[in-house]
């Protein structure tokens, strides 16, 4: 049996767990405060808030995060007082609690990164919290339970101890025998049991205490060590510890002081706690890595199944009659398995959205503006891998709205707008994707300024005429900032282009829609999951591409009379009276050896959440399959018009089309496409060589 306590190093392994837990606790904390702010809380909410702070403090103490603990201590004390009260905290108290929570979060972050808020930053808030408690309780020091400092005594002393336990000692499952054993470890112990109070068996009460002891102990240990052995029973016993051979001033017959127990007011038994509002879900914690492994495994299963289908397809049908049916069943099960596994990893966007209110609070205060943030759709679920990447772009968009969008109060008044600016952050599922919107009722994009800046930077030729939407889209180009001063809030130029690239690397898109003087709306569109996709594989020349099934409306082989050339715009196809523009994939991607006559190929009519309908011309459709989406970005980069790659059953790589971008690519809208290896000015480029 190992007899050592784990060292400091071992405890460090729990740091990660602690900080994860703090993150959850802080989230819950803010949520509860928000519930109270909306007038929907109850006493249990206050209790829950108390518990959050209590837990953060508890763990913090174990790791020695003194600053955090000291602050949490005062916050907790205030909450303790609040939860006893009959009245739920109101506006000002809630504001104070918010500020305290913000500071607490900062201190947690500081503990985690070993670099916290400036020294003393929390002092005034702390004093405020302490002051709110009315009677100034002196802050009890939080020195961890140290071993009783023992003055070194070289010589052994003899002690006589009289121990008379009351019934309560036994009722609390304390064992005199264990106490004696502990004393025996300190030195020589002789135990005399006094049976004089033992009654007749007839009147014997098993729960009563009839025995008492006199103990002779010879030990070099100080008195405190002896008292310690009786620590838990001291209040329910009569104990006398006398030193026998030395004359300690005032020590003879000094009774053991009863621990100070404040008169326990008749307190209502809190009883079994009411379930925390809104979150009574049975759940287990799982390591993210385990889930990731599962997701990858399912991905591999999908690929293997595709291979099996291929091999099976090459066999003569009679060879293995049950095979096709079996593979189909397998495919169905795999689909369900995949959905289930992805659902595990999906989380509500709440975890990202929850940081935003605080951001808005702080930045708007810094800027001297009042802004209200409305958040909807926080329950919308999205794959964990995508969520984590959302924080930065969203933060930037909000900062931008606060800094450049929302006008200062006097300007708003002059425009007959309410003094308080409004920002709306929302998330919802829309046609197989997640759509997140950040909209504000500020001044909108200053188009003349943006255009001028773009012309100045050489991004747009002077004589070019751009539509309003095209001008708005310019803000996503690098180096474009029209901020007159470099604001510390949103910085210079490190802006929308980075946000757009971040979003694109997730397989998403961002667009802006602005109305001058009225407001501005950013729309982010992200795939629900990065991992698995239902696709239709198509052949173009020697290449295979995958078109996501969610984008496909229909497919057909056109007849010549429905095909109409349009000057300057290629061809359109007439479908049931509607004209659908055609896009020849071999042209867009430069693939040789492909079918150039649409009537000899197939037109796949597609639509995306951003573009209208158009038809992609391919050689043939190869079949529908589930594909595992593999990243191109990891080792290469993003390619406009391509939304990832996959590995086919035959081991070859196939590219997955990004339908929404494809039309833009086809139009050669160079202003919008981020072409990799676009040469910087001054650099020579190699003459274009054929792809193969």
């Amino acid at each position, binding site marked *: 049996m190992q007899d050592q306590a784990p060292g400091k190093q071992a405890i460090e392994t729990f740091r990660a767990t602690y900080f994860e837990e703090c993150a959850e606790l802080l989230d819950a904390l803010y949520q509860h405060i928000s519930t109270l702010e909306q007038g929907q809380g109850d006493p249990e909410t206050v209790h829950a808030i108390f518990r959050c702070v209590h837990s953060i403090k508890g763990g913090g103490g174990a790791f020695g995060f003194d600053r955090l603990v000291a602050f949490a201590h005062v916050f907790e004390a205030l909450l303790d007082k609040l939860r006893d009260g009959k009245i739920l905290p109101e506006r000002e108290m809630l504001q104070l609690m918010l500020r305290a929570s913000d500071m607490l979060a900062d201190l947690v972050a500081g503990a985690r990164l070993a670099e916290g808020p400036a020294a003393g930053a929390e002092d005034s808030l702390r004093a405020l919290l302490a002051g709110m408690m009315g009677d100034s309780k002196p802050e009890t020091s939080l020195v961890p339970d140290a071993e009783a400092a023992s003055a070194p005594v070289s010589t052994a002393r003899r002690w006589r101890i009289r121990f008379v336990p009351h019934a309560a000692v036994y009722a609390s499952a304390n064992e005199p025998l264990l106490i004696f054993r502990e004393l025996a470890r300190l030195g020589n112990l002789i135990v005399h049991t006094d049976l004089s109070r033992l009654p007749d068996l007839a009147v014997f009460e098993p729960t009563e205490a009839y025995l008492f002891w006199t103990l002779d102990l010879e030990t070099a240990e100080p008195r405190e060590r002896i008292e310690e052995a009786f620590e838990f029973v001291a209040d329910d016993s009569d104990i006398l510890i006398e030193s026998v051979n030395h004359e300690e001033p005032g020590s003879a017959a000094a009774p053991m002081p009863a621990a100070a127990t404040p008169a326990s007011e008749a307190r209502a038994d809190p009883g079994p706690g009411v379930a925390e509002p809104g979150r009574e879900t049975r759940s287990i914690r799982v390591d993210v890595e385990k889930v990731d492994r599962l997701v990858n495994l399912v991905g*591999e299963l999908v*690929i293997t199944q595709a291979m099996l289908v291929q091999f099976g397809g090459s066999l003569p049908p009679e060879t293995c009659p049950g095979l096709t049916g079996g593979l189909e069943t397998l495919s169905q099960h795999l689909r369900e398995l995949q959905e289930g596994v992805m659902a595990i990893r999906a989380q509500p966007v709440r975890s990202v959205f929850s940081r935003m209110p605080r951001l808005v609070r702080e930045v708007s205060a810094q800027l001297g503006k009042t802004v209200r943030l409305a958040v909807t759709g926080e329950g919308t679920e999205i794959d964990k891998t995508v969520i984590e*990447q959302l924080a930065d772009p969203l933060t930037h968009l909000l900062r931008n709205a606060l800094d450049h969008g929302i006008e200062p109060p006097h300007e708003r008044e002059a425009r007959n707008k309410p003094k308080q600016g409004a920002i709306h952050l929302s998330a919802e599922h829309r046609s197989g994707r997640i759509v997140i919107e950040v909209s504000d009722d500020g001044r909108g994009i200053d188009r003349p300024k943006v255009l001028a800046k773009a012309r100045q930077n050489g991004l747009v030729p002077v004589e070019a005429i751009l539509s309003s939407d095209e001008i708005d889209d310019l803000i996503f180009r690098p180096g474009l900032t029209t901020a007159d001063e470099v604001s510390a809030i949103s910085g210079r130029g490190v802006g929308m282009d980075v946000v757009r*690239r*971040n979003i*694109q*690397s997730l397989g998403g898109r961002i667009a802006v829609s602005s109305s001058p003087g009225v407001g501005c709306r950013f729309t982010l569109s992200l795939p629900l999951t990065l991992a698995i996709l239902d696709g239709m594989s198509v052949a173009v020349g020697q*290449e295979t591409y995958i078109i996501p099934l969610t984008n496909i409306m229909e497919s057909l082989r056109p007849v010549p009379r429905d095909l109409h050339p349009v000057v300057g715009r290629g061809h359109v196809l007439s479908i049931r009276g509607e004209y659908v523009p055609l896009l020849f994939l071999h042209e*867009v*991607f*430069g*693939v040789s050896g492909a079918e150039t006559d649409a009537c000899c190929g197939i037109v796949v009519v597609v639509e995306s959440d951003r573009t209208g309908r158009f038809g992609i011309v391919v050689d043939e459709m190869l079949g529908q399959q589930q594909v595992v989406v*593999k*990243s*191109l*970005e*990891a*080792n*290469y*980069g*993003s*390619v*406009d*018009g*391509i939304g990832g*790659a996959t*590995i086919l059953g035959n*081991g*070859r*790589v*196939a*590219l997955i089309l990004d339908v929404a971008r494809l039309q833009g690519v086809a139009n050669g809208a160079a202003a919008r496409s*981020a*072409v*990799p*290896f*676009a*040469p*910087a000015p001054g*650099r*020579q*480029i*190699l*003459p*274009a*060589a054929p*792809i*193969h």
Partner: protein
Amino acid sequence: MSTPQTSVRSSTAIAPPGGEVAGTGPIQQFITFTLGTEEYGVDIMMVREIKGWTATTALPKAPPHVRGVINLRGVIVPIHDLRARFDMGTTTPTPTHVVIIVQTGARTSGLLVDAVSDIISIEPEAVRPVPEMGTPADEQYLDGLVALGERMVTLVSLERLFSLEAGIGLTDAATH
């Protein structure tokens, strides 16, 4: 996937007497390969594996030296035609050509070369700086020259070779 038979010999380069000292430090090992008659070397620590040429899937609008991507045990890896990258023409790959899979930082890529020749050990003192050439681009990813008997090996810095590309506008998701 056939692995080409290469006999890999080990050679050590010793500082030439009176030669310029490029740097001091521990001996480094390089894998050398050929492009036509030229011989190049890359840091062996970055080489993950060597495989034969397999057909790539073309990437639209990629620069000429990026031949496309392959599936390397489930990971998508781009293959760079080094001959093209060094402005020396284009390679027409055959099954005897070789792809060196390298890892720079978090990024895995493949280098298409004619053949792999050697593993060499170099003392830093033996490395001579690259003499002035025309285009600034050349110097930036070459680490130096080393003489091995009759042979001249040009050392290539893979980090700079790829980071240059990143600077040109490649979206580097790995650094997000």
